[in-house]
């Protein structure tokens, strides 16, 4: 055996007892050769006598990315006259591609010889593919045995989708189809080509594989390729516009936040200035107060010395002192009034100066009220606030429950955007991280076009337990919905779980980087209906 990056397989349906068997006649890595998926055909497509089916298939085995080019023609099993039986050959290229022209030439040549050597009147001569007599040499094998062309931009994850193209399969036409199919393998695992109307009609009748026509003016294959390009372009444009919208939103938020900050700062400056003025006035008042008290004290001291030296009549002095006291009391009342900082603007909720102002305010008032009075009033005031707040919060909680229970159908995206905006208003830094999170969410292929109905998500709900890991939840969803979900998204479990979390944020909690299903019911389970 030669060491090549090219594998050649021959296969057939042998009926009793071996059934479908495939054998590699040229291979590079025997482990890879052993694991190559069977080239058997499902009941979605059938080989008819005198018909030929070509196919191109993608497959990944470990680090090997394989593209198989196959041919199927009718062959009868030795011991039965069952229909849909076939003999086939396949050329498989590993990690690189070769010129399609030579691949087709080699494939046709190999298969031609295979059928010549192993069929008698259309009936298989042997009972197992390992007994096939293969073609010793292939004219152009040199040109494909070391493929050099890079495979660009092809996702080898399985999509579980197949396409059948009804078209001219002459080598020069097939060459172009194969060449253009590489891109299309992003959408389909296998693409079949046949010019047999029997095969095409069979495929249509079964309705499992999609069939398109590319004959005369029907150019569905080109359309399919264009659709792919368009779809890709649309996705890109959609992303661009989403990004732009986000940029715009964040810009707006930035302007608004800055404006708010400025206003607040101005307000605070004004308050601060006002406060400073008041402090200054208050300091001046201290002198005045001192002066006022001193005046009264001096007058009283004067009266005392008058009485000591018996310079005046006691009654008169008392009268004078009494008058002084009246004046003093009146004066004291007048003196204190300017000290009240009532004119200081009410503190803004977001102002840093808030607490200091309040304290100063209260301190100034303290001369008027006893401490205990003030405190009891404060406590009463707080209790009132708590009462009101409790009532309001209870009402809000009730409203939330009602909303969650009855109005949960409203679109999640709306909620998401408002949440994002709220975050911007309070903590601008976090907002920058949110768009990164959302851009990480890759689209599922195919894009979900439906969601599980009530019956179906209840069925899923019955089978998952709280505190399950997201992987287990997805496994249950896949197992319970093999057609609409599993068959479409197998291999995309990670992406699918991200979508699931995104759609049902309220149901999941993150612990140590893992998501757990913790509460509520999964109502938004994306699916794809053909």
């Amino acid at each position, binding site marked *: 055996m030669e060491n090549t990056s090219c594998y050649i397989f021959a296969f057939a349906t042998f009926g009793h007892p071996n*059934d479908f068997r495939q054998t590699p006649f040229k291979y590079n890595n025997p482990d890879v050769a052993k694991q190559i998926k*069977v080239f058997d055909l499902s009941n979605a497509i059938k080989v008819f006598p005198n018909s030929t089916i070509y196919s191109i298939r993608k497959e990944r085995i470990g680090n090997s990315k394989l593209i198989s080019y196959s041919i199927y023609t009718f062959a009868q099993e030795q011991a039965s006259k069952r229909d849909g039986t076939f003999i086939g050959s396949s050329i498989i290229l590993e990690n690189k591609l070769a010129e399609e022209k030579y691949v087709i030439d080699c494939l046709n040549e190999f298969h031609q010889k295979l059928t010549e050597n192993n069929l008698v009147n259309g009936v298989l001569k042997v009972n197992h593919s390992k007994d096939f007599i293969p073609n010793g040499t292939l004219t152009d094998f040199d040109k494909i045995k070391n493929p050099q062309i890079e495979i660009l931009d092809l996702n080898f994850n399985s999509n579980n989708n197949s396409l059948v193209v*009804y*078209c001219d399969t002459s080598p020069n036409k097939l060459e172009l189809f194969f060449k253009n199919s590489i891109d299309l393998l992003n959408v389909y695992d296998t693409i079949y080509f046949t010019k047999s109307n029997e095969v095409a009609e069979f495929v249509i009748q079964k309705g499992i594989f999609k069939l398109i026509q590319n004959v005369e003016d029907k150019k569905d294959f080109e359309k399919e390729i264009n659709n792919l390009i368009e779809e890709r372009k649309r996705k890109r444009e959609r992303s661009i516009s989403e990004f732009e919208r986000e940029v715009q939103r964040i810009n707006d938020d930035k302007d608004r936040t800055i404006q708010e900050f400025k206003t607040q700062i101005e307000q605070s400056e004004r308050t601060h200035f006002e406060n400073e003025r008041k402090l200054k006035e208050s300091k001046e008042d201290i002198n005045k107060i001192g002066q006022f008290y001193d005046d009264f004290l001096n007058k009283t001291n004067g009266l005392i010395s008058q009485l000591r030296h018996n310079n005046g009549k006691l009654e008169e002095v008392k009268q004078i002192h009494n008058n002084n006291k009246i004046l003093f009391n009146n004066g004291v009342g007048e003196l204190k009034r300017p000290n009240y900082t009532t004119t200081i603007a009410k503190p803004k909720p977001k102002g840093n100066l808030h607490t200091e102002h309040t304290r100063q305010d209260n301190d100034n008032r303290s001369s008027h009220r006893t401490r205990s009075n003030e405190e009891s009033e404060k406590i009463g005031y707080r209790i009132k606030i708590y009462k009101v707040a409790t009532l309001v919060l209870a009402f809000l909680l009730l409203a939330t429950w009602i909303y969650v229970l009855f109005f949960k159908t409203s679109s999640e995206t709306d909620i998401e955007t408002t949440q994002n905006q709220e975050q911007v208003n309070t903590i601008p830094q976090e907002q920058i991280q949110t768009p990164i999170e959302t851009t990480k969410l890759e689209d599922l292929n195919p894009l979900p076009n439906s969601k599980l109905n009530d019956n179906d998500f209840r069925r899923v709900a019955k089978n998952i337990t709280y505190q399950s890991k997201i992987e287990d939840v997805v496994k249950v969803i896949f197992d319970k919905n093999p057609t609409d979900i599993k068959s479409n998204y197998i291999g995309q479990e990670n992406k699918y779980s991200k979508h699931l979390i995104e759609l049902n944020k309220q149901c999941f909690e993150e612990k140590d980087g893992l998501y757990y299903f913790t509460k509520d019911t999964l109502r938004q389970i994306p699916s794809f209906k053909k």
Partner: protein
Amino acid sequence: MSNDNENLKPLSFENEEELKPLSLENNTTHQSNDDFVPISKGANNEIKNEDSNFVFFFGVSASGKSVILSSILYYLSSQAGVLSPKSGAPNSKEAQVLLADFFENISKGILPNRTTRDQVTRIDLKFEPSNKSKKVPPINLTFLETAGANHQDINKGNQYHSSIDSYLNAKIPLNILIVTSYDSAHKEDSLIYQFLNRLVEKGIESRFVNIILVISKWDLSGKGGVTSEDELESFISERLPMTNNRINAYEFSKTYFTIGKIESNGNTEKITNLNLDSAEIISKWLYECITGYPLDYEGTFWERIKFSF
């Protein structure tokens, strides 16, 4: 490949439906002497609480697994009751197409196609017997359609393909039909023996599963059926000695199967005379194994009085 220069034209996909009259033999005449299959003791005497009752076919390619499956389905739905999709468990598109093919083809006398390797087509159905007795309740049936190649593969200690293995590893109620054909049974004694060993290795204890050995293509013997139990017994003990001992030891059931008369018509084979007698025997065995009551149970004492009115 030969017609490369032929001009191709777009197709106008119009489905031409052709319906052919059924050719059903009168079943009642044969019923008395055929109904001799020894019934294995049902694993449970009540309906299992499991999700469904799984029916698994073992046999090499072209041994008749798909023919037996389609005839059981046809018998159950055309004569014994109603077969409907199980609610809440939609079948895959492949399974739906397969089911449609089975029904459509068998009524036209067309034999089922070969089955694709490395994949299990699971068909979930609910069977509601037309028997009105309360002891004969509706049951869920899940048929697993597999390819002969995958069964042939277990030869010499090889493992089953993962798609089949997952069913054998799951703790589900299994009803296993081991199918081997009249003309090649003698070559498959060892393979069947290995399969029974494989079940033991997987921890599937014989007493918890229902197993029946079916000798298919009995028409190749030149007779429509067997005249006595001994005929089948002696065939099995002669052609399948190891399997036979095993089956007798565990008191598994044995029966034969024929779909009727098959004629070769040029390149294809067609059923010219559809006979559902043996499908009926297998269906009844299946039903009784699952529920513990025969499908044609005549009713309890009170029911019999009620029915007589």
